[in-house]
């Protein structure tokens, strides 16, 4: 079969210096369902956004039916017959399904919008592809699975022959996933070519013809799905290129700091993101929470830090049940938090480094006394911290947004680490930052542990959780599917199997995540 589409030698460097794609080749055969798999940050989405004209690569060329094309915008991509269904839907909630589908290409009856025609178009399209959908219902009233169908139909109406689906099943229930697969097969039979981005290997096995594995911004292999096992794929996905080792001694666990008992939480779509999770953490140890992103980590962190109110289960920190505690009350228990979304929750970008370094302790001595800020102390401390944490800047008065990603994260870390935390919740502490900063932050985490801080380390980075954790749990689909008491004996392949949901321990073993009294 001829190559329908070829991307050659694609390199993409983001303004903050991260190399998202490096000399990536990618090709599609007409009429196949082609999986692009890889961990978070492996460069899958970047590559697809380049194909859909949302990013321009620094290097590389794209050929469609052996003809070189330039895709400078999404409308250009649409024109070339490429459609994309984003993870975050591009829909208008208060409009009907039909209105969303024809938006931008509305049928008209004289000067009026022809609603009936829009409904007819939608019905015709959905029956052609065997989609069951009511064109008249409002998008805000329909479940996520249907919203996704609307997105797919939108792309099809605009003549998409190549359809990119970015982690389409991340928001779907198993039943909805099944239905989606049926529909995708219908599309394939009608001659469409589908790119399916995922890290759920079972789905890839069930649906796809070929797959491209991405790791660390590179294409590390193209295979026929029938030729490889799930284990093979997982090995390819999680294999480590560079191993950053952090020297660390044996842990010396003290009293129990954190106890999580049977907590559950739903997300805005009503899906259970956390399901009956229990574990505990002692002072002086690092408990790793491994897992591919979107498996309940975010909810776990938000519940622990008070950003989300807890409705089911119980969380105890230092003997206090914190279910109804405010963020401030939790912080007063000497809990620090490195948020995964640092630009939103970690800093105020237009304020100076100095002003970002004491947001969590501005109302305690010596930062302020009777409401008056101790400017001298604040200045002194900020200079010390800039030095100690090697924050590269001209002065502590510089705006945070002028710093590089790694240095911004160092500002967050400097603030959170310098308040003598007894419990540290580190959520993806080194994601997307340079190697130097990464190594530095990891060392600091170990240092804190040695000073008897209990660390909960949430990370999708295998290297990180394996190197740093003393004990480790794995989250998959909101459940703890594995617990390891001794991380040193664990291999990355085995961990990968749990993270990708291919294996699950017995309940007895998992129960080990809770310290015995």
């Amino acid at each position: 079969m001829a190559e329908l589409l070829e991307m050659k030698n694609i390199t993409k460097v983001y303004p903050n210096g991260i190399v998202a794609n490096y000399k990536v080749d990618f090709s599609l055969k007409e009429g196949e369902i082609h999986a692009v798999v890889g961990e978070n940050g492996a460069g899958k989405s970047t590559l697809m956004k380049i194909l859909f004209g949302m990013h321009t690569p620094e290097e590389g060329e794209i050929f469609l039916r052996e003809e070189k094309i330039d895709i400078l915008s999404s409308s250009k991509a649409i024109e070339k017959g490429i459609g994309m269904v984003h993870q975050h839907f591009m829909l208008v909630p208060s409009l009907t399904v039909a209105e969303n589908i024809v938006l931008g290409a509305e049928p008209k009856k004289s000067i009026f919008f022809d609603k009936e025609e829009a409904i007819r178009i939608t019905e015709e399209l959905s029956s052609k592809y065997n989609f069951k959908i009511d064109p008249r219902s409002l998008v805000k009233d329909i479940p996520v699975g249907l919203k996704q169908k609307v997105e797919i139909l939108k792309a099809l109406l605009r003549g998409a022959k190549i359809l990119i689906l970015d982690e389409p099943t991340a928001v779907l229930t198993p039943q909805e996933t099944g239905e989606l697969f049926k529909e995708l097969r219908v599309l394939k039979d009608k001659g469409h070519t589908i790119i399916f981005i995922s890290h759920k290997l079972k789905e890839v096995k069930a649906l796809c013809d070929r797959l491209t594995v991405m790791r660390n911004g590179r294409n590390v292999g193209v295979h026929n799905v029938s030729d490889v096992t799930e284990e093979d794929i997982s090995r390819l996905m999680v294999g480590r290129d560079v191993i950053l080792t952090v020297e660390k001694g044996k842990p010396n666990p003290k009293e129990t700091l954190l106890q999580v008992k049977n907590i559950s939480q739903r997300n805005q779509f009503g899906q259970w993101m956390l399901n009956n999770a229990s574990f505990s953490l002692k002072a002086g140890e690092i408990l790793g929470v491994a897992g591919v992103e979107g498996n309940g980590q975010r909810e776990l962190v938000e519940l622990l830090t008070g950003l989300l109110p807890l409705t089911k289960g119980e969380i105890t920190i230092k003997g206090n049940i914190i279910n109804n505690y405010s963020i401030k009350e939790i912080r007063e228990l000497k809990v620090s938090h490195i948020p995964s979304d640092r630009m939103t929750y970690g800093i105020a970008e237009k304020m100076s480094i100095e002003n970002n370094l004491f947001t969590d302790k501005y109302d305690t001595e010596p930062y302020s006394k009777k409401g008056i800020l101790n400017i001298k102390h604040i200045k002194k401390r900020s200079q010390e911290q800039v030095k100690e944490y090697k924050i590269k800047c001209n002065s502590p008065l510089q705006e945070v947004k002028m710093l590089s990603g790694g240095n911004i994260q160092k500002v967050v870390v400097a603030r959170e680490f310098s308040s003598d935390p007894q419990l540290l919740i580190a959520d993806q502490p080194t994601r997307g930052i340079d190697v130097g900063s990464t190594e530095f932050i990891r060392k600091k985490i170990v240092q804190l542990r040695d000073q008897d801080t209990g660390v909960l380390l949430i990370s999708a980075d295998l290297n990180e959780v394996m190197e740093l954790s003393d004990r480790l749990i794995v989250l998959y689909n909101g459940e703890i599917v594995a617990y390891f008491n001794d991380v040193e004996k664990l291999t990355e392949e085995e961990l990968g199997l749990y993270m990708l949901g291919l294996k699950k321990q017995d309940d007895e073993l998992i129960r080990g995540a809770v310290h015995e009294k």
Partner: protein
Amino acid sequence: MDKFIEIIFSVSFGYAVLRVTTPLLFASMGALISDKAGVINIALEGIMLIAALTGVIVSAFTQSAFLGLMAAVLAGSLTGAAMAYASLNLKTDIILSGVAVNLIGAGGTVFALYLVAHDKGISSSLRSLVLPKVALPIISQIPVISDIFSGHNILTYVAILSVVLVYILVYKTPVGLQIRAVGENSHAADSVGVSVIKIKYTALILSGAFAGFAGAYMSMGYVSWFSKNMTVGRGFIALAAEAMGGGTPLGTTIACFVFGAAEALSNSLQSLRVPTEFVQMIPYVVTVVGLALYSSRKASQIKKHLRNRG
């Protein structure tokens, strides 16, 4: 108290309500269109003043009330376009652009008034025209009803018609669909090739045009002259009416009539020895109370929604 009830149920009160609601209707339709496109237009007040003066000047010089009206609407549209330029091209905050237009409207009209009429308070030295009053065909034959609904300035009927037009524009035309899409999720609109900037320009220009009608009515219908700051907050009330009406043409219209009734009442009550200032305050208080009620209802709906989720 009897007197109070007598006022409310009098025919002239009904007539007065329609008369004072007219500018609110126009301006609130302007507020609605820009709000639907996701831009808040707090400059309605200033645009009304600019349009009111333009109407007076042009009608005085051309001796055509119709040309005066057209000029007023044009002035409103152009001001809307200027705001769009400032907020979309120069990236000035839309609220502060609105504050600027209000300042220019308040001061600029007095400045211009002095240039043409040599008076800083009122335009009575200009021989400006008013738009005609219209007796409605069949309705003018029916007693009582006729006294309330017939014989209004032509713009009163245009205002009522414009509610229908806005409804059709927003809910029944392709442009309206795009306006709503842009206001709710501009990324979605952008991703299917709808020009967000073009739609916002359209909305602000239309918004300005409606404020232009409102202004023209003030100086060429409600009264027959322009006077300094003659809109006294009607542009802001229109904004509140739109918020209280939940952003729908019907809800907004109802809210406008509530405010209109409050204002008409305040005008009538002045004859009753109720302290005038107290009465004049009614529309504004009603607005705040209405807005608070509306928001609290919305807030509790959101809470309920969240609870069902948990």
